[in-house]
């Protein structure tokens, strides 16, 4: 009896490990065929907002036309994970968040690189904005913003593969020196696309100003702006242009430019996609990879 039990148990465990192993294995062998798995972001996401505007998924008459069968994920990382795991998936993420588990497509023949965004040839680009409540003052906040626009701060922007504010621009503040007497804490919150860059900026800033603590809270652009307006955040982050309703009581400014990369699984043979095709996929007019590749080949 006990031996039988033991045998059953070990069999079950082996099965479990087997499933786990299959699940974790890389499916990099076959090319993408069949139904496209369309991955999008939640409605409040700045990446989504910028993406649907730039690709024409959003029109003045019909609003956001993203098909309702598109999978909705609530963070940049979930998009990356999904696309890295599913051969048939297509998604979009901030260019600076790209990793080697996914493949960025070139759009209309232009590769998704920082240089092309700066040159203006890569069309899927948007600003990274920060905003604070108009009319408020905060010594630490102002010094931190000064740091972001300094040579050191913008060097971090470039280093993280985003596009810095060009040198000689009015906003640039030159070389940064710490006032040395600041202490206290502020909270920065908002877009999950701006967050990775902000984290690096905060890290570097805190190293220069040991008395200052900056808390970073990540959600999405709309939450960042409403948080800044309500006073929850001293600085809000948005990965899209600010809306008129938001500008009523916020002062906004761009700290960098970012491209949006259209990503597919590395084993997908597709390497270039047209802007109209992106739109057609996301509004559900094109549903299979055969259609996408067929039209690209023509």
């Amino acid at each position, binding site marked *: 009896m006990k031996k039988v039990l033991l045998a059953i148990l070990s069999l079950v465990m082996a099965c479990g490990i087997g499933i786990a192993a299959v699940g974790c294995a890389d499916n990099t062998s076959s090319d993408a065929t069949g139904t496209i798995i369309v991955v999008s972001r939640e*409605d409040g996401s700045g990446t989504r907002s910028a993406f649907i505007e730039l690709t024409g998924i959003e029109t003045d008459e019909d609003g956001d036309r993203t098909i309702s*069968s598109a999978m909705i994920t609530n963070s940049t990382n*979930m998009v990356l994970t999904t696309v890295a*795991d599913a051969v048939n998936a297509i998604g979009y993420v901030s260019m600076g968040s790209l990793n080697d588990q996914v493949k960025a497509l070139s759009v209309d023949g232009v590769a998704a690189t920082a240089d092309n965004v700066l040159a203006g040839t890569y069309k899927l680009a948007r600003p990274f904005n920060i905003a604070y409540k108009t009319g408020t003052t905060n010594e630490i906040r102002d010094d931190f913003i000064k740091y972001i626009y300094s040579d050191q701060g913008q060097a971090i922007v470039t280093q993280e593969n985003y596009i810095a504010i060009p040198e000689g621009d009015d906003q640039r503040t030159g070389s940064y020196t710490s006032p040395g007497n600041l202490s206290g804490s502020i909270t920065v919150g908002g877009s999950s696309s701006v967050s990775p860059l902000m984290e690096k900026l905060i890290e570097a800033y805190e190293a220069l100003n040991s008395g200052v603590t900056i808390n970073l809270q990540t959600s999405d*652009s709309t*939450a960042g702006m409403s948080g800044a307006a309500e006073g929850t955040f001293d600085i809000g982050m948005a990965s899209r242009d600010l809306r008129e309703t938001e500008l009523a009581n916020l002062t906004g400014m761009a700290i960098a430019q970012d491209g949006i990369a259209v990503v597919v699984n590395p084993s997908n043979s597709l390497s270039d996609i047209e802007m109209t095709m992106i739109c057609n996929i996301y509004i559900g007019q094109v549903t299979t990879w055969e259609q996408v590749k067929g039209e690209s080949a023509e």
Partner: protein
Amino acid sequence: MTEEVLQDGKEIKRQIKVDPKELIMKIVFIIAAVVFIAAVVTICVFIFVQAVPALKEIGLFNFLFSSEWDPDVEGTGGGSYGIATMIVGSIYITAGALIVGVPIGFLTAVFMARYCPRPLYKVMKPMTNILAGIPSIVYGYFGVRVIVPFIRDTFGGYGYSILSASLVLGIMILPTIISVSENAIRAVPKSYYEGALALGATKERAIFRTEVPAAKSGIVTSIILGLGRVIGETMAVVMLCGNQTEFPDSILDGVRTMTANIVLELGYAEGLHRGALIATAAVLFVFILIITLLVSLIRKKAK
């Protein structure tokens, strides 16, 4: 305090001393009960006060039976708020998780209570406790990395589906079902089992025909606790169910549950949109209320 006592037909009055410790403890218990009731009432009031204006504006019928969910994020006016797809999603995933979790959980409980050899029990008991302590985000991540690719490769489709979410949530409710059911079965007096054996029943018959019916109330409770956890589960579900606002055609399609809808959008929702999300919470609340009522009805009938 005075008390009238009849003694030998005569009425005499006697003083009874109240222990101050007893009085203090009594107050402590009352305070605990009041805090608990206050918490429940506050949450109810909070949800319904915020939900009612939004429901009025959207219309209850529209809200419950429209499948069009298109919130007005830009603040330009308009937008439609119908949660029919999410109600269906919640029901499907809850049912799916119960189909997965209840048989496994129940049979494991029987095994652990009556069949399990001592050394194995010493391993299994802590295992169920560990399973109970794993945070739901970890279950979600496990689902995303293991279950979802497995489903996608085996059955096709997105992978992020009712099936994946049901499987993971089914695993998630196992510890609840196992430990509550096991305790219920163990609480059945030994004499039931012995009596059944004495009448010539086999071990299986004695367990499933006498002990399990006697422990029915406890087993039903375990299922209800599991159900409550599934319908209210948020973090793991939002990672696994795909979150589409569409009616699913099969269990390989994605859905959005009510909880997922709230957590996806509450962060930035304003005005009517926020009201609609709170109203979603109110609907969820009513759902749980209905389930609780149904169960108490079933139990009354069973008695």
